[in-house]
């Protein structure tokens, strides 16, 4: 008898090929003793204090659930066991910004999306998916893409500022 596979992620909230409009925010930036700027992405209580950077159209979303295998060697370095530990979920997407006057997105800027993943066997419908916050850790743009203002973005999940139900994985 065929069994229903466990669905870890459904793209029903934001199907591939679809577009949505989101607002990106820039978190407050603090300076450390050495003058380095530190974007306080996951600071507690930072939930609503970002600066609104404007609207961006997003498309081509892909979610990545990552894990890392850790070796647990014996006294003599022999292979005895290993463990699998959870890594940050990652989100790749393409974003388009308005023309002149819109800031280029930088690492640390974040967006809130109704997208997530559930390890439960029920398909997560868009209504069931609470807001999750994703912060930018990379932005790739080449000179000849500048005119259409499109960028390939890599985002990490901000666990602290996302609904716990999203992070069952």
């Amino acid at each position, binding site marked *: 008898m065929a069994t229903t596979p466990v669905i870890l992620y459904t793209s029903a909230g*934001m199907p591939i090929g*679809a*577009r*949505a*409009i*989101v*607002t990106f*925010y820039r978190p407050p930036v603090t300076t450390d003793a050495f003058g380095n700027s530190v974007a306080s992405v996951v600071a507690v209580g930072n939930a*609503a204090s*970002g600066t*609104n950077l*404007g*609207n*961006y*159209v*997003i498309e081509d979303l892909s979610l990545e659930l990552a894990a890392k295998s850790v070796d647990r060697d014996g006294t003599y370095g022999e292979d005895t066991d290993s463990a699998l530990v959870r890594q940050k979920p990652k989100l*790749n997407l*393409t974003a*388009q*910004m*308005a*023309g002149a*006057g*819109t800031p280029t997105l930088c690492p640390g800027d974040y967006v*809130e*999306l*109704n*997208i997530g993943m559930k390890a439960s066997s029920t398909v997560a419908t868009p209504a069931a998916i609470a*807001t999750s916050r994703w912060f930018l850790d990379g932005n*790739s*743009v080449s*000179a*000849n*893409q*500048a*005119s*259409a*203002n*499109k*960028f*390939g973005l890599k985002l990490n999940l901000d666990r602290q500022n996302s609904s716990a139900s999203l992070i069952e994985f």
Partner: protein
Amino acid sequence: MEGARPFLDADFPGYAEAVARERLVRGAACLGINEKICGFEVKPLTAFHIRLLSLVRSPFLINGVTGEMLAGKPEIISDVMRFLWIVSPMFKSGDIEKKKWWQRKTEKDKFNSTFSPIVKLGIDIVCREILEYIEEAFLDAGEPSAGDKSYWEFEVEVSHELHEAYGYRVDFWNEMPVEKNPIHVPLKLIFQLRKIRRKWNNPDAVLQNKSEKIISLGLAAMNERDKLNGRK
């Protein structure tokens, strides 16, 4: 703060129409049929045409030029005629064809008689249609990057691409049937194939459509509205 908002056509006026036009132009390129400029039959634009047009310094290839600007140019009629002759299916390269005793008309004579109705149209209309024909051919070309150094010419690049990807022969020095010569492949197809290869070689490649400029404009208007409404 809010999550995603739906992408509504109403927020991007003209976008749906621009996408429909893009799809039509791209799809029609696969049919292998000739096109029309003001009712005059022309071949799809190719690298071969671009080279010839640039050799005769056709003003239609100047970046940013408009139909209205060209309409006021001295000798624009002969520029139009030269353009349409080069892209017409009747075009013959080489020396001017001599009429043989059994021929009533040469290809050039036929061209001249087909061209005459166009002269009666407004010259700005003809110029606009020619520019539209060129713009459609370069629909998927992407933006030219200013300041890029040139180490080879466009038709050589196209020939190399079609050779590497699709087995065309690179052969400019022998007589080759037109259908096998890569510089006679319509640009509309070449640029679409180039986009596909880019995505296949790098799934993270960010592609763009010309119609997406409308999205940028719509987003700018949306940002202004949000500011007025005090959206945080």
